[in-house]
């Protein structure tokens, strides 16, 4: 919806100027940004191009960012070197906003480590405004800095809650950076400062691997380990692994060059390091000033030991208790909940607020273990310690979204100025292992807004909503049971490969397959904060008893693996399935089934489907014996397909395949983007061509296991969740138990019976 609105705005605003693109500017359809040839409003400070040597550190690790609605914020974690902190720094920010944003009551704010560095009216609807301010000395610190960009936006003419969806400001990634004045400030010289490499203007952290020709496949496992460790050390989610054959000539922002080779293969230009490498492992930056990390040693084993030093970097970062460490694009700490627990808002980075608008949004994250198994029953609870001004009309409400899905709607029934607890029940349906995001949206109605008198449109007189930071989020005790296949656990925690026997990485035969696979692994590591230890990289199908991860285009992966994992030949579209897919009628029928049709067309089957629909139950919840998991038939137009199948022989196979071989790189990049990757679920997840919604096929057969034994309470939770998704099993099971109890009761009554004589 939001996207639709903004793209309409895009078309309207763009007009004839659509062809003009600013340099450096990424014009993806998502950005929805244009730079018409009008002058920037006065309030925006024009960019002063610096003459002196300077280094630009881009601030947006995910590319362009949209701040939407009345309040929105982004928190980034920027690593700076000691030299950068010493230098004179300025902050630049480029943005463009929706026409309806009222400049007099809308503000854009940038805080660095809690200090407001920039505060500016939002008033650049026509073109990208480029602001620049000096960063006061002492604000920046060596190491990680928290940069918060927030927008407070009000509508020019409208008082409705709906109108708040029209508000947005887009922050241009290419125009938003820290500029450090001084020579060689972009250079990273210490391994510990590796996170200072940062990212490109588009928000990608490029890992450019340079290694001796022909050694890539042979040392694939080492490379896989390396790119994952680098992503963890750099704390980035959007890494991009590339190959190069020659050493770089100049420093490029956001690019880390990694030279991987034993001492004997090192080029002469880095002679001093080569000397060291002959005697022991070396993990140091080359003195060339091009951010080239040299991983070397006397032989390939020595290279592997050099890699251990990279791994240590991440372990030295400060890590809050029970939290996942922050990431460049997610600076707030993420608490881990291993079982029942209560988190205060303060613990999740919420500082309390007062709000005078119509629609307030705030979100935070928490992490669940890889064997979280409680999505079918039970409710978490947000206890909101909040006060509302008496202007707020009953009928206002709180909506809670879990991982982007609406989870609950709670009306505000009583309003007065007292702080009181309002419980918001949040069904755990959309919770998944790993990091979960919870968004609370308050939609506030007032008499004044209903009237919407001139003069009251933009300026909220009083604070309407107060939320205290001692509000809490409580998760009840939940079941812990690992399941396979479970792409959600895989995507969000790396389960089960992270702590399992080393899986094989099987890649497609194409040339770009290995970089794509490495990109995939390093992005996954960055997002899950875990490393999957790869045993070997190969092109051939592994033993079915062996765990394996496959990455490649459909036609390039080993056909027997494709068949075993259960993915059919991609077909062109729904309409001409017959011609395109080829194959016989059975295969087409199978395709149709695997695309969500009910397999059972008998009366009972249809009745079950109907009841399940009415009650919002999952498929098969009313079945007794689950149907088999059919092979999946992707469309040729699908951007990426992720599948997981447990082989009868015991190997768990996970496959990322791109139906269209020419789109391998873009498909991998897309599916592993932070907006899409956490939504992987079931046994098959598909990113369709329009990227609208992820298509998920749930497994009918799931293998359970547990790491910490089946104690009574865990078993109870697991059974509860299982029967909540297998409704009829519970109903019939309970009936059977009650029949048994009845017979037992009859027996006991029989022996205590009294005579009537």
């Amino acid at each position, binding site marked *: 919806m939001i996207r639709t609105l903004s793209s309409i705005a895009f078309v309207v605003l763009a007009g004839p100027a659509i062809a003009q693109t600013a340099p450096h500017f990424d014009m993806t359809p998502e950005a929805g940004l244009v730079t018409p040839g009008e002058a920037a409003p006065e309030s925006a400070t024009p960019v002063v191009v610096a003459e002196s040597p300077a280094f630009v550190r881009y601030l947006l690790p995910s590319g362009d960012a949209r701040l939407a609605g009345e309040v929105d914020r982004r928190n980034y974690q920027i690593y700076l070197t000691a030299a950068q902190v010493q230098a004179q720094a300025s902050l630049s920010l480029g943005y463009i906003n929706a026409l309806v944003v009222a400049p007099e009551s809308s503000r854009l704010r940038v805080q660095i480590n809690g200090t407001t560095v920039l505060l500016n009216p939002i008033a650049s609807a026509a073109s990208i405004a480029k602001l620049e301010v000096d960063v006061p000395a002492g604000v920046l610190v060596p190491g990680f800095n928290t940069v918060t960009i927030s927008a407070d936006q009000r509508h020019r003419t409208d008082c409705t809650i709906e109108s708040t969806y029209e508000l947005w400001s887009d922050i241009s990634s290419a125009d938003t950076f820290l500029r450090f004045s001084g020579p060689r400030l972009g250079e990273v010289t210490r391994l510990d400062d590796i996170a200072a490499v940062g990212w490109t203007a588009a928000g990608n952290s490029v890992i450019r691997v340079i290694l001796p020709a022909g050694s890539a496949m042979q040392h694939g496992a080492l490379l896989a380990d390396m790119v994952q460790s680098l992503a963890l050390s750099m704390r980035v989610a959007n890494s991009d692994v590339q190959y190069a054959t020659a050493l770089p000539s100049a420093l490029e922002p956001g690019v880390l060059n990694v030279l991987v080779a034993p001492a004997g293969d090192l080029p002469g230009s880095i002679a001093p390091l080569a000397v060291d490498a002959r005697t022991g492992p070396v993990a140091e930056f080359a003195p060339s000033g091009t951010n080239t990390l040299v991983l070397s040693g006397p032989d390939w084993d020595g290279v592997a030991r050099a890699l251990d030093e990279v791994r240590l970097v991440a372990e030295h970062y400060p890590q809050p208790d029970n939290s996942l460490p922050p990431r460049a694009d997610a600076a707030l700490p993420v608490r881990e909940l291993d079982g029942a627990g209560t988190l205060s808002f303060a613990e999740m980075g919420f500082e309390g607020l007062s709000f005078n608008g119509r629609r307030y949004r705030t979100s935070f994250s928490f992490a669940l273990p890889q064997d979280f198994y409680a999505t079918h029953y039970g409710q978490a609870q947000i206890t909101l310690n909040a006060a509302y001004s008496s202007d707020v009309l009953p*009928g206002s409400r709180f909506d809670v979204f879990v991982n982007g899905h609406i989870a609950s709607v709670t009306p505000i029934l009583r309003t007065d100025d007292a702080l009181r607890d309002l419980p918001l029940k949040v069904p755990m349906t959309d919770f998944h292992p790993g990091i979960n995001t919870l968004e609370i949206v308050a939609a506030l109605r007032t008499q004044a807004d209903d009237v919407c008198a001139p003069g009251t449109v933009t300026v909220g007189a009083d604070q309407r909503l107060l939320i205290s930071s001692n509000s809490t989020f409580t998760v009840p005790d939940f079941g812990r049971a690992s399941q396979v296949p479970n792409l959600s656990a895989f995507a969000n925690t790396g389960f089960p490969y992270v702590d399992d026997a080393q899986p094989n990485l099987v890649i497609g035969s194409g040339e770009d397959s290995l970089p794509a696979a490495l990109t995939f692994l390093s992005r996954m590591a960055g997002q899950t904060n875990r490393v999957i230890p790869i045993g070997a990289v190969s092109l051939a199908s592994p033993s079915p008893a062996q765990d394996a991860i496959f990455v490649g285009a459909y036609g390039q992966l080993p056909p027997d693996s494709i068949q075993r994992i259960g993915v059919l030949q991609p077909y062109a579209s729904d309409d001409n399935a017959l011609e395109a897919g080829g194959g016989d009628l059975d295969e087409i029928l199978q395709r149709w089934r695997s695309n969500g049709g009910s397999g059972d067309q008998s009366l009972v089957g249809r009745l079950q489907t109907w009841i399940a629909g009415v009650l919002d139950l999952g498929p098969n919840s009313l079945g007794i014996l689950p149907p088999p998991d059919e092979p999946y038939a992707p469309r040729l137009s699908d951007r990426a397909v992720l599948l997981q199948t447990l082989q009868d022989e015991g190997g768990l196979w996970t496959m990322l395949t791109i139906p269209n071989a020419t789109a391998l790189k873009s498909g991998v990049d897309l599916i592993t983007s932070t907006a899409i990757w956490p939504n992987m679920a079931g046994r098959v997840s598909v990113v369709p061509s329009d990227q609208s919604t992820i298509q998920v096929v749930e497994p009918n057969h799931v293998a359970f296991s547990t790491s910490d034994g089946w104690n009574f309470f865990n078993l109870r939770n697991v059974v509860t969740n299982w029967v909540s998704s297998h409704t009829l099993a*519970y109903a019939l099971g309970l009936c059977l*138990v009650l029949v048994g*109890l009845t017979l037992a009761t009859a*027996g006991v*009554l029989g022996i205590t019976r009294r005579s*009537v004589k």
Partner: protein
Amino acid sequence: MRKIALIAFWLLFAGIAAIAITLPISIQTHLVTAVLMLALMLLVKLFRLEGIWRLLLLAFGTALVLRYAFWRTTSTLPPISQIADFIPGFLLYLAEMYSVLMLGLSLFVVSEPLPSRPATKLEPDDEVPQVDVFVPSYNESEELLAGTLAAAKAMDYPADKLTVWLLDDGGTLAKRQSANADQAEAAQDRHVRLMALAAALQCNYLTRDRNEHAKAGNLNNGLAHSKGDLVAVFDADHAPSQDFLQQTVPYFARDHRLFLVQTPHFFLNPDPLERNLQTYDTMPSENEMFYGVIQRGLDRWNASFFCGSAAVLRRTALETTNGFVGKSITEDAETAIDLHAKGWNSLYVDRPLIAGLQPATFASFIGQRTRWAQGMLQIMMMKFPLFKRGLSMSQRLCYMSSTMFWLFPITRMTFLFAPFFYIFFDLQIFTASGGEFFAYTMTYMLANMIMQNYLFGKWRWPLISELYEYIQSVHLFPALFSVVLNPNKPTFNVTAKDETTVRSRVSEIGTPFFIIFLILLVGLGFTIYRLYAEPYKAEITLVVGGWNLFNLIIAGCALGVVSERKEARQNQRVRVDRTCQIRTPDGSWLEGAIVDVSSAGLGVRLRSSRSGVTKDSLSHLRFEPYSAIENPEMALDVRNVVTSENGTLLSCQFVLNTPNDFRLMADLLYANSEQWSERLNSKRINVGIIEGVLRFLWIALYQTSRGLSYYVRFGKTPAVKATRAPRASR
């Protein structure tokens, strides 16, 4: 060994069931399960399956109720930080849990009621124990006592083994010497006349010096002056049938630890609810559920208890407790629990063997119930049955069920007022969504209704329990509190059964019902207003408003109960068929048949359509009595004559002057207990849930309007004392 195995088996399944029921499953799974189980329950009910199916239905129902209780406990209580919500919310929760507990106890009690015992009698070789019959009296009229004494004396039992005692507490020395001269004179007069009556009926008259310990003291005085092996107790208005002792005494020879044989209380007249709602002829009476099912259920666990009258007790057992125990005002149940605790057994004969009178007015009905409720609460507080030593586990549960039942006014009032917290004060005392309410509360209520109807349908129609509880609760609620505040305070008040309802009026204690109705009506108005004004709360408003509406319907029906109908015929007739002869004015005797009898008169059908008997004339009746009565002839006042081609129908009124008249009247009315059984059975029809509810709604609608119109037309007036005993009035 087999016993231990069975119990282990039971515990295993109960454990699994408990775990399965307390899984916090999703609402959809609960709903599917509940619907499936309700459907199975309905099938069992529809096909009237018994035996093991009965237990299965109860198991399913219990599981659903427990699922509700689990959900209610874990998911619906308001947060304790919202104290204004929490306190009433928690009280409501407690009231609901009490209901669930009571349901559980009552299911235990009636899990397997004993079938009715076969008829029995003393065999020629049997030892015949000496029986003393006690008829305690306080203020009952001479006529009433004459009938009872005559019936008692007419019981089929060797005359030398039967002594009938009139235990008069209205003529004690203390009363006769009262400081109030009028009262003293009345007591003296009563003393003299009752002595004469007793002598005429060959009964023993006994009174005492002071009215200590009320009825228990009176009975103990009787015990002190008699020596019989067994003691039969009949309230002054409870006349026994001829076979009373034959049906009860033999059991004492079969079990030497038997202390009690209790029989049902059967009533010849409607209670105020039955009379005012005109349901007496079609609907089972209130006490049917107790005497028809619950006492049989209690009997299965050897926990049938003494109900004050219509029972035979063993003297040696009573001696171990120094007679009847009188710490509470329900000495009957108290005596029974003490004797059960001493290892004595009790037994219940499911056959009406006495006929008595219901309180005629609503106020006296409430007075009677107040005594029962206060007394049972006293027993619960003084001898908490769950921990009473000597009782078996099942007896403890049974007595808990019997005593805790009387806490119902507290819950009933809670349910009545709970919706107001939301409707008027906007407090959220029950946190659940409409969907949850539907999935849990509705299925719970349905399961409850199916179980109740299956178990008690023949004896209690749907929603009638709610009505009876409500009409009692309004006045019992404060009465219970007075017991809690001072357990020894309540005193024994004798229930008046001699009031008449000669004119239409609203009961003198009826006003609170109109006030409550009004408040509920305002609540309904608020509901409608809030639905309109606060559409975002429609879901919860509909649920609470529906609940309030339900209360309103019950309260409306109760308006009819407290609006006392003028009743032309005070006494209900029992259908009989006995040949008789009627003397015509010319002195000849005509053959005829007695078709019905009431305590006031009888109907006679003559074959001749030209009998010559005229309206408002005096005639005589002759018939063959069941018991030995020397002169089987009595005078009749012919009040109406209907002549048809088939014969003549006479409506006559008794003229009761001599002891012989009373004997004859008693023989007609009480001798044959079969006719009472028939009458009870004729009303024992399960109308089913749907028809029962529809009937109730219709009654409620009509009674609401009648109650309101009575209030406007007649207003409140006190009851009228009968000038003659009800048995003699018409």
